[in-house]
């Protein structure tokens, strides 16, 4: 029985220039065996030395890949066999180092970095690139702390840091660059002291400002790489957009409760950007901040160091960057999962026809205005507090007066039960926000209801919900129980 075999163009020279060859055989392996006996030169191109078909060679009987049924499958008269090479490629496997310059090491530095220098992937070349690198850290909080400490130790020559905040007691559980004695000190001052103590050669550039649409491009433009350690959406989108526009890789990390995520965004290197993944922010309040939901301090070290690790790889141009991939860490399961993030051709920032070509108002974009919590925790860069009272807000001072005058109102605490254990305003009714939708009918409609939470965000959302349910008289305590503790009752702890 003669079977028609189609030979790929590149191999026809080994089959007397024929496009198709008629070969006898009852099974696929017989046909291919006879083919390569008749045209011996074909053999080495189709088979490896162990006698197996080379892994890129595909053989089809009519339309079916023989790997489906095996090469002992019988063939019948009229069947056609096609030999086809599979071709693959791609552009990301080998990344050039993003740092082209090299800064010579001193003898003291050679000693300091000896464990890097004997690592073949780093070596003198890589270490000199690290020294030449200028890296910007957005935030000196939970993620910024380990990133700064490790990158300084690793020999990064220049580290810039953006933060406007001062060290607070509640930072110390995770922001390990700051010590107890630093409470009250500007975070950048505190960070500079530690980093300089690790490596006096470090060129540390403080940016003691809030990162805004007005200054972001100017600050970021002088750096080679950005590590985003913010905990709020407006700054995250701001950093993303600025980095896309300036063609700077953006090493992203985020943490919440017992989970963390990390990725590398760099459309100019072929990967996606943050907006390819999340084109728009979640509605304000849907994703709680760490100040609302809590975070295990240890997670910051894990995720921050993944970011530092990716920064080093990008700088020395080794390994496979965490680009187009999102790594998600679950501390309770102690498991890592990887998700693909494809580039979005219609991405408003890095797509074919970008609609966002200059920085925008990111607070507005994220729906954050008065009465919403923009993240007042230590990590946050976009600060919302002290911007005055909204129409539904009352200050803690007003609340105090209303209580002193024994006015008729109901004070409702919408925090989670765990938080009631930390602090409480005496006489409040406890109704956690997650239970509000089921239990709101417990609240009277004819009475003024004054809502509070930790700092005003969740109670603001509770107010909106109750208004939708037809409650006419509602107020929100601006600054929440923490403002109460700070300004009215020093016996109540702040957290």
């Amino acid at each position, binding site marked *: 029985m003669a079977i028609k075999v189609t030979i790929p163009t590149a191999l026809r020279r080994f089959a007397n220039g024929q496009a198709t060859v008629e070969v006898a055989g009852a099974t696929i392996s017989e046909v291919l065996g006879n083919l390569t006996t008749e045209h011996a030169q074909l053999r080495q191109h189709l088979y490896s030395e162990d006698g197996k078909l080379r892994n890129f060679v595909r053989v089809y009987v009519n339309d079916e890949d023989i790997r489906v049924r095996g090469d002992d499958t019988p063939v019948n008269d009229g069947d056609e066999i096609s030999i086809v*090479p599979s071709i693959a490629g791609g*552009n990301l496997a080998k990344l050039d180092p993003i740092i082209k310059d090299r800064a010579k090491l001193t003898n003291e530095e050679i000693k300091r970095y000896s464990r890097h220098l004997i690592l073949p992937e780093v070596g003198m070349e890589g270490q000199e690139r690290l020294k030449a690198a200028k890296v910007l850290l957005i935030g000196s909080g939970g993620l910024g702390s380990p990133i700064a400490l490790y990158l300084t130790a690793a020999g990064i020559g220049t580290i810039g840091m953006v933060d406007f905040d001062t060290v607070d007691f509640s930072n110390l559980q995770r922001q390990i660059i700051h010590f107890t004695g630093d409470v009250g000190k500007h975070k950048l001052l505190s960070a500079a002291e530690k980093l300089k103590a690790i490596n006096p050669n470090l060129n540390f550039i403080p940016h003691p400002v809030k990162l805004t649409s007005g200054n972001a491009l100017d600050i970021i433009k002088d750096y080679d790489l950005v590590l985003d350690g913010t905990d709020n959406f407006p700054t995250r989108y701001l950093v993303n957009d600025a980095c896309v526009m300036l063609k700077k890789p953006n090493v992203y990390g985020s943490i919440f409760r017992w989970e963390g995520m990390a990725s590398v965004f760099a459309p100019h290197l*072929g990967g996606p950007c943050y907006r390819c993944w999340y084109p728009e922010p979640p509605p304000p309040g849907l994703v709680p901040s760490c100040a609302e939901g809590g975070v295990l301090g240890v997670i910051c070290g894990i995720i921050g160091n993944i970011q530092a690790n990716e920064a080093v790889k990008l700088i020395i141009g080794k390994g496979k960057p965490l680009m187009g991939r999102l790594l998600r860490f679950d501390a309770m399961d102690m498991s890592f999962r990887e998700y693909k993030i494809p580039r979005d051709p219609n991405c408003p920032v890095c797509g074919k026809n970008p609609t966002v070509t200059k920085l925008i108002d990111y607070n507005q974009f994220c729906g954050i205005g008065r009465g919403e919590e923009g993240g007042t925790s230590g990590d946050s860069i976009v600060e919302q507090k002290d911007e005055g009272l909204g129409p539904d807000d009352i200050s803690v001072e007003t609340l105090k007066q209303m209580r002193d005058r024994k006015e008729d109102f109901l004070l409702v605490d919408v925090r989670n039960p765990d938080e009631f254990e930390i602090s409480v305003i005496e006489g409040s009714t406890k109704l956690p926000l997650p239970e509000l939708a089921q239990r709101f009918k417990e609240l009277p409609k004819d009475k003024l209801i004054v809502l509070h939470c930790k700092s005003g965000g969740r109670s603001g959302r509770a107010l909106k919900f109750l208004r939708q349910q037809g409650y006419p008289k509602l107020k929100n305590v601006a600054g929440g129980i923490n403002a109460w503790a700070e300004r009215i009752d020093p016996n109540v702890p702040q957290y």
Partner: protein
Amino acid sequence: MKITRQALQQIHAHLESGYPNEACGVLLGKDGVVTEGAPATNERTDSAHNRYLITYAQKDIQNDADRRGLEVIGYYHSHPDVPARPSQFDLEHAIPWPGISYLIVSVCKGKAVESNSWRLRDDRSAFDQEPVEISA
């Protein structure tokens, strides 16, 4: 590699339309001159922005070329936003058969900006660049 202006323009248009993903296809022609690019579906849907794969599409492309008296001269693919030189991955996955041209087009911000052609060395150790001669 010899290629007609029209074929190069057609290939550029195909690769630009695939941006920001990698697009790929087969170079077809006659007497060693590429006269057209046969677009192939990128089978790497999982990672289309930085990988391409053509397997079964080639069977139909090859059969169609045979019917029309054309030969497969090589393969083309885009490198979105990165230079038009083969990556390590390209090297590891090239077909180690003789005489195949690999055209790589750098597509930056959706525009084809650079087209280079490469041949794999017999020992698969590297690619060598070959001139791209454009004919009318």
